[in-house]
């Protein structure tokens, strides 16, 4: 019984949810085989830094395994942990099994500073994101920091069956950050064209380029894409986004943006968003329903002094007050939609006629 005389390491008090400042960010990384994703993650794991980073490799979100391995990096040392995915009641449980498993592991072994989740290339980042984009009310120790899509030039330009090209476009649409690897193999003109293509799909995404998977970690972490900490940056970014102008390519994903001055009624705004995202009630000129994949904006709610951030992924959306207060300038609502069959005029018209009408007084 000698070991009982050794003073053990204290652990954080169980059951205390972390305050927002202490929550752990999760970044989801998707990408195809051959893009260099695994090289990137290994680089992050072995590189010397002061953070305790956990990388969950591959196949995350596939339900049947009972255990998943997790590589943890601390001060450049690599070791392995195991996530127990209890098969208990998947039914009416609000938190995904994977999310609970990570939380349990952190309770037993202490907190990470960062979690990177690698998925297989064709996993739906929207579905994985929704696992981690939980209601603030649930008091999770984890928050979703952003989606990162990792690819090389070929993936977008090569003659591939239409399905695969669409897939890359969809991944870009849902990404908050894209990393283009192997840019040393690409000439200047091709690179520009590639950047333009990415921009036309997703007007908001941050684009990073690298060679041999070497990226500056500070550019990848702390994206804050899903919380309101980035309020000021978001407002600035939104102003810079342009609606995609391209000859009619019906099935492609585009970015549409508009701004409307005035204040809105929160209830009517909710109905508008729900009609758009859930009911798919708006159609473009060809009669095809508009399908929004990603939605971001800053809106002015009548009676609220603070700017309100709007965030949506597929059908999940949230309105969240930011710390930024509206100044003396007239209040302007800025919205960015990324998706298919979007028609800017129709959307803006609908928005103005339904939402703005009711809350017209500033």
């Amino acid at each position: 019984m000698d070991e009982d005389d050794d003073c053990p390491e204290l652990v954080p008090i169980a059951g205390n949810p972390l305050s927002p400042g202490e929550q752990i960010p999760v970044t989801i990384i998707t990408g195809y085989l051959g893009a260099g994703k695994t090289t990137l993650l290994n680089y992050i794991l072995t590189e010397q830094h002061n953070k305790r980073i956990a990388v969950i490799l591959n196949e995350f979100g596939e339900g049947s395994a009972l255990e998943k391995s997790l590589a943890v990096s601390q001060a450049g040392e690599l070791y392995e942990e195991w996530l127990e995915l209890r098969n208990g009641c998947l039914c009416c449980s609000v938190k995904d099994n994977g999310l609970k498993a990570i939380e349990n592991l952190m309770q037993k072994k202490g907190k990470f500073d960062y979690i990177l989740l690698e998925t297989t290339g064709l996993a739906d980042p929207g579905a994985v994101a929704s696992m981690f984009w939980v209601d603030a009310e649930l008091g999770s120790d984890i928050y979703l920091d952003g989606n990162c899509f990792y690819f090389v030039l070929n993936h977008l330009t090569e003659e591939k069956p239409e399905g695969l090209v669409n897939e890359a476009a969809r991944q870009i649409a849902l990404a908050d950050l894209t990393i283009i690897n192997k840019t040393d193999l690409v000439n200047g003109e091709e690179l520009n064209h590639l950047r333009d293509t990415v921009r036309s799909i997703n007007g908001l995404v941050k684009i990073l380029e690298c060679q041999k998977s070497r990226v500056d970690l500070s550019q990848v972490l702390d994206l804050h894409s899903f919380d309101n900490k980035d309020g000021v940056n978001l407002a600035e970014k939104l102003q810079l986004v342009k609606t995609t102008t391209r000859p009619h390519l019906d099935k492609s994903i585009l970015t549409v943006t508009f701004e409307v001055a005035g204040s809105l009624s929160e209830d009517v705004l909710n109905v508008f968003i729900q009609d758009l995202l859930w009911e798919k009630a708006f159609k473009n000129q060809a009669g095809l329903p508009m399908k929004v994949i990603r939605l971001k904006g800053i809106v002015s709610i009548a009676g609220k002094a603070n700017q309100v951030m709007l965030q949506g992924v597929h059908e999940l959306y949230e309105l969240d007050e930011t710390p930024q207060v509206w100044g003396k300038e007239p209040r302007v609502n800025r919205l960015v939609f990324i998706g298919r069959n979007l028609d800017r005029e129709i959307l803006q018209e609908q928005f103005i006629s339904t939402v703005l009408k009711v809350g017209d007084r500033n």
Partner: protein
Amino acid sequence: MAAIETRECETEGCSSEAKLQCPTCIKLGIQGSYFCSQECFKGSWATHKQMHKKAKEDKNQDEAKNCVENDTNTDPWPGYRYTGKLRPHYPLTPMRHVPGNIERPDYADHPLGMSESEQSLKGTSQIKILSAEDIEGMTVVCKLAREVLDIAALMVKPGMTTEEIDYTVHLACTARNCYPSPLNYYNFPKSCCTSVNEVICHGIPDRRPLVDGDILNVDITVYHNGFHGDLNETFFVGEADEGAKKLVQTTFECLMQAIDSVKPGIRYRELGNIIQKHAQANGFSVVRSYCGHGIHKLFHTAPNVPHYAKNKAVGVIKPGHVFTIEPMICEGAWQDETWPDGWTAVTRDGKRSAQFEHTLLVTETGCDILTRRLDDHGRPHFLNQI
């Protein structure tokens, strides 16, 4: 509504805020033991470790007689720190058999109890609109589920074990040509869920006799002719104290207020606002980890119906939708944890939790409570016990 209290470091003379805990104390079940830092802890280690020594001695004394009394084991997971007074009473009787002529759901014969039909729809938020035929099937199965619950209610009294109630439920199901839906659902070992006091939901019926003053929830789901029907009620065992009465009454009201608001056009996310408002007004909290769900040919499917306020649930209520509302309301804080059996959900602070559930069919003007009680003016059983 319990806020998170700031705790003070245990070291004599130190009053800094404590955010860390001694892991050995956790293992030994010693409450408290909060410290502000590792250094401070080391400083008082010499005295602190005496607490471990004493706890181990006490435990050794108890171990011999406590755990296995009358062949009942109440400590199947040594080292697990229970949040309240309730203990499992093992071993469980072997898994019960359902006669071969009764139609079985897909998971009944899966080795891990997985439902392929549910898995194939995982993640979708499309809500089924039931046909007239489906509605007929749901009406029948919900009525049968209600009959089974009413029978279980008769069994609730001090001294009765939850396993005995489960056996009765099992027989009542098979007598009505129903498969008891919980049986083997993701390997759940019994035919209904029995949740006592601090158990929030998914309690496993075992050898424990009910004690005067307990509150007990019995959750029944039955499968008949391809459809599932789901309901639950909380009952008093013997005499209830005032706190129990208030908790159970408020929980029932939360459910009924939510049901009253159900009509086409209302968003599913709104139901949580109604429930939490009423719970909070009475000083109670709402469990967040478990929610209501769509139910028809699948046991659990879209929509997801959280019971707490400000949730992101997707969907608008429409005629032909069928789903459950099943709020779990707590005396203390809402945080839950799960026993090592992988099922039993308990409150982290060990205080009591109550629940009520109905399966609802949305109509053009509102909703039908498919699992409503048909006799005794439709009153829940606990009102007869007050």
